[in-house]
């Protein structure tokens, strides 16, 4: 019988004790595994949230929200300040404009302001919302009534990064025909949304007019979004020149080097731009959700450490008790020629057998319990978070979510900034068990056994057979 076999056999020497130790260890290993799985699931979800938030910040003129707000446009000097801010990787500038179809009675502002005119027809019917919003947002005549033949103006975005999903506030941007345009160009060229192209029979190479100038269609795009597919995208300089808004910028999309630097960059930009601009990132909107997930992560981390420590303490105390109980036996083994290493290995084998059995039971228990426990942890922690939030921003404007408790919808006439539902984040955290997790479980068992028998092994080495014999 080898030393290892003897160690394994010794694990069953006292059945009741072996069952008790195995059961308690299995519980701690199951708990450790559940916490490890929770930790990984929550971390994956945090990464998802951070990825969905993106590493962008939107800067808009203070008081502006698409065409519903007011204030002064951003300037080139302010864009320079933004570019010089720490962690800022790049800045995409945009100018929002809207064109009224020639021949319709264009709505005017209270002071007679007019939008640009075009020969294009809007691809979107005004409908109830369009009529009401344009009446409410100053698109009505002085008397407050919309003209009888009112049609929705066409949204136009001038940008340094045509084709950017961030600029269009969409999840995807696909050119279905033609080619992209150069954002730094001042040529009168455009990308046209597929709905607008269809409505006006535009193809690549077609031309249309705006502000009395001829503009060439270079490409047709599809974003999967009805509103943005009815818009026009031009190079920033071209639109500034066309609409006589030289140097004007209605929003800047700032890309930060790392999503973790969003908050600090927002603060820096707010400080630099003062009350001249509104600075917004999705990070603040998702902060509550991430905070809840962070709570779960913290609980899981401490519970994991606690479970591993508890397991080690259990096996340590058990082995200590066993070593003390078999002091004489250890002395005899030494007297008949066994080395300290062999005796220690015999006890480590015994501990490994107990933890191995516990690991098998614990891993099975952990797999069964992982999702229910994770659900309980997440639902317990999410009580502090807000309810589902839906963000739909105005033209070129930032996403503005509700403060929690229910859906908040904000609507405008420009390109949508996109849609993110953080409420789903908490209900979609699931633990998945992979081979690596099982490996971790086994590794934890071995670690527990080795750590738990380290001191008892040292005690074994210290036992002097002469003393043991003397106590006969």
């Amino acid at each position, binding site marked *: *019988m*080898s*030393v290892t076999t*003897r160690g394994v*056999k*010794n694990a069953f*020497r006292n059945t009741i004790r072996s069952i008790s130790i195995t059961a308690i260890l299995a519980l701690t290993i199951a708990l450790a595994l559940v916490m490890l799985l929770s930790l990984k699931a929550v971390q994956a979800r945090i990464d998802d949230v951070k990825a969905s938030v993106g590493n962008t910040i939107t800067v808009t003129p203070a008081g502006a929200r698409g065409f519903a707000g007011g204030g002064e446009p951003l300037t080139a000097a302010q864009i320079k300040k933004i570019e010089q801010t720490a962690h800022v990787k790049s800045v995409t500038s945009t100018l929002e404009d809207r064109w009224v179809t020639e021949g319709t009675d264009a709505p005017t502002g209270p002071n007679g302001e007019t939008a640009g005119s075009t020969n294009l027809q809007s691809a979107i019917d005004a409908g109830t919302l369009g009529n009401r919003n344009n009446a409410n947002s100053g698109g009505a005549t002085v008397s407050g009534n919309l003209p009888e033949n009112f049609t929705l103006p066409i949204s136009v975005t001038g940008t340094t990064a045509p084709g950017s999903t961030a600029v269009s506030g969409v999840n995807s941007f696909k050119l279905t025909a033609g080619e992209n345009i150069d954002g730094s160009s001042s040529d009168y060229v455009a990308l046209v949304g597929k709905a607008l192209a269809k409505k006006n029979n535009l193809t690549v190479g077609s031309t249309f007019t705006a502000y009395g100038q001829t503009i060439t269609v270079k490409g047709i795009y599809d974003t999967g979004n009805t509103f943005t597919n009815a818009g026009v995208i031009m190079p920033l300089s071209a639109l500034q020149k066309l609409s006589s808004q030289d140097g004007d910028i209605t929003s800047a999309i700032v890309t930060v080097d790392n999503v973790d630097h969003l908050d600090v960059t927002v603060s820096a930009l707010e400080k630099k731009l003062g009350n001249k601009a509104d600075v917004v990132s999705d990070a603040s909107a998702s902060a509550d959700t991430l905070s809840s997930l962070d709570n779960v992560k913290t609980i899981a981390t401490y519970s994991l450490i606690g479970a591993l420590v508890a397991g080690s303490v259990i096996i340590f105390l058990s082995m200590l008790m066993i070593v003390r109980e078999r002091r*004489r*036996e250890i002395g*005899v*083994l*030494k*007297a*008949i*020629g*066994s*080395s300290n290493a*062999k005796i220690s290995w015999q006890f480590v084998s015994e501990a490994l057998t107990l933890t191995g059995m516990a690991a098998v039971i614990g891993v099975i228990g952990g797999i069964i319990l992982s999702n229910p426990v994770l659900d309980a942890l997440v639902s317990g922690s999410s009580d502090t978070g807000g309810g589902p939030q839906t963000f739909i921003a105005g033209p070129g404007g930032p996403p503005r979510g509700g403060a929690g408790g229910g859906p908040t919808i904000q609507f405008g006439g420009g390109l949508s900034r996109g849609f993110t539902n953080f409420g789903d984040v908490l209900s979609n955290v699931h633990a998945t068990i992979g081979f690596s997790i099982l490996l971790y479980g086994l590794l934890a068992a071995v670690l527990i056994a080795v750590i738990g028998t380290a001191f008892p092994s040292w005690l074994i080495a210290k036992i*002097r*057979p*002469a003393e043991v*014999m*003397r106590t*006969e």
Partner: protein
Amino acid sequence: MLQVTDLSKTFGSGDTEVRAVDGVSFTVPTGVFAAVVGRSGSGKSTLLSLLGALDKPTSGTIEVDGEVISRGSDHQLIRYRRNQIGFVFQSYNLIPNLSAMQNVMLPMEFAGVSRRERRERAEALLDQVGLKGGKQQRRPAKLSGGEQQRVAIARALANQPKLILADEPTGNLDSKTGRVIVSLLHGLARSENTTILAVTHDLTIARRTDMTFEMEDGKLTGGHDVEDLAGASVPG
């Protein structure tokens, strides 16, 4: 041959110093069954620990067949205990969850003897000490005191040691079984050509050995060597 020269062992220091073994010298030839007798606390068990390399002497030398074992490293002492020494304890000290056979095989396992060889030798040794058949597979708890001591003796012989040290080998046995065990040890000393040194306070046992040494307060106070006993019949 066991040769002990001016052997001392001191515990504690200053006012609390105790000289458990104090300048002991003696020689026991190979194949002789010797006994050290003395009252409790006379230092005989400490002497046995020193001879068995379970403890290191404060001074003096111990030689077994010319090999000085009193100044070896821990590693050397383990090897010495494994290959040169066999122990027989008063309370047998068998491993309770191993069978008699497995207990006897244990020292051979530590010495690196092959599984087949140690099984054959264990069986032969158990036969030699009178434990035969199914009893060899029994655990110690299923054996009588005398049988357990036989197993302990077989275990002590496992690695063919030059010296067997027995600490009160009959202390837990009735007088009849004790006599049988003493006879067994005596016979083994001759047949295995092994030196056996037993410590005991039982003078009736001491009288049945080839040599006796008396010990008191850590010193040898008297004894009879093998020449003194020449012509005496072998105890049986």
